[in-house]
């Protein structure tokens, strides 16, 4: 084991695990929220969103407007 020259503190290490867990939970919640929005047809699945984004960048401005209206997310979680 690679021991540091400073005592990192057991409590401080455990706290980092908890914070890591919270971060993981936040990601999980975001994913869950997104799936719920897709299920309720408020948002499109990630793949479709990405496809429309790349389409937007190649589409002339006039056509893009209609895209935006259709593709506008209802709100961010």
């Amino acid at each position, binding site marked *: 084991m690679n021991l*540091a020259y*400073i005592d990192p503190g*057991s*409590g401080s*290490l*455990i706290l*980092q*695990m908890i914070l890591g867990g919270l971060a993981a939970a936040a990601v999980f919640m975001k994913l869950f929220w997104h799936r719920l929005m897709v299920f309720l047809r408020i948002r499109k699945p990630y793949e479709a969103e990405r496809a429309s984004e790349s389409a937007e960048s190649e589409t002339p401005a006039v056509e893009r407007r209609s895209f935006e209206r259709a593709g506008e997310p209802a709100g961010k979680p």
Partner: protein
Amino acid sequence: MSPPENPDLNAAEAAAPRLEPGSFRDWDSRVFYDDGRILRALSETGARDWEAVARSRFFGESVAAGQVVETREVDDVVVPEGVAGGAAAVLEHERVPFVSYPYEWPFAMLRDAALLQLDLLGRALREDLTLKDASSYNVQWRGAQPIFIDIGSFERLPEGEPWQGYRQFCLLFLNPLLLQAYKGVPFQPWLRGSLGGIAPGDLRRLMSFRDRFRRGVMTHVILHARLERKHEESARDVRGELRKAGFRKELIAANVRRLEKLVRSLDWAPGGSEWSDYGATTSYDDEGARRKEAFVRQAVHSRSWGLAWDVGCNEARFSRIAAENARYVVALDGDAAVVDRAYRELASEGRTDILPLVADVTDPSPALGWAGLERQTLAGRGRPELTLCLAVIHHVAISGNVPVPEFLSWLRDLGTALVIEFPTREDPRAAALLARKRPGAHPDYDREPFERALAERFEVERTEELAGGTRILYFARPR
């Protein structure tokens, strides 16, 4: 923790290689000096870490951006005997112009230093490197630009381990910032009294019920303090457990991003500090101010100077004049609010030649730490060749009760040339300070005894009376 170097080595000391007395904690990396050069002896492990760091992209980019000291491997030096087991490699570092300590920085400086530490860690992680500690003493300054000096902090990322430096980051960066941002209490006296920083348990006791809901307090202070107390005596192999549980560097990176957001959100707006409006309401009309500037400028341009100090710098207006012809200017003021403001301005101008520090000359930073050698006195880190003492002696002598001859002796012992301003007893500001004392107090504070004491210690080259003779400027060289 790496020690900043001492730029004020005298010639005899500089001749033989000697260890930096503050660099003993990390056995993989020890700083020493040889002939004025700043060197670092690395152990086998330290040398392998350095190889990985030197190859990384982020390191080269950080050095090029001025965030990390320039460093090269050398083989033309003899390592001092005190380095156990010799050295597998030796590095040479660029010198920073004047060493300073976190207890001399205003709020915004400590915050920028914290952001530099987090930025380096975040970028190091992407290349499977990390920082083994997080000491605010590892950040130094080129003027108002922070620079990371401890190359020995970088190491290869041990897989599955959390960040070893997190606790130290809280003690020496985050908690002092939280203390000042949320409680309005200056962190400098605490850091000066406790080189290890502010423990979560101590800060927790200061947090009110309302504070618990402020950003960062619940996790980094309250939960941290509780876990620390609970696991104080624990001999558990927490690191082993964490590795088994699948701790990954992404979790460190996520924590670093959160800390960065938290630190960015912290700010300190000083309330009515004694001198924060001083610049706007000086004792001079335009003509007087112009003549004072001309007097200082003439002294500054009488020759070129190495290090200059501006004592009682306020908004650092005269520090800027000193910088016209001095290699480096240290701008000192006892009021953290004015130094904070001066720093923000200097930083936004990108100045690298003026270092603003919170320092009260009637109580300058002492030597501190192990054997009294880890942290040096203010003067021990670099004596000025030129010192500006403008509108400051009445504070030192009347508010600070330091006898005028003793103050002048202190300046004389620095060996510095001097531009000093003496407000007479009739000057409104000096009179206001005298009015707070019993009648007849400070009989030594007068023009005649001041001039006598000055002439005993310095060769006065030039004087000029301003403000109807109630303020006199002197340019003097040490006898």
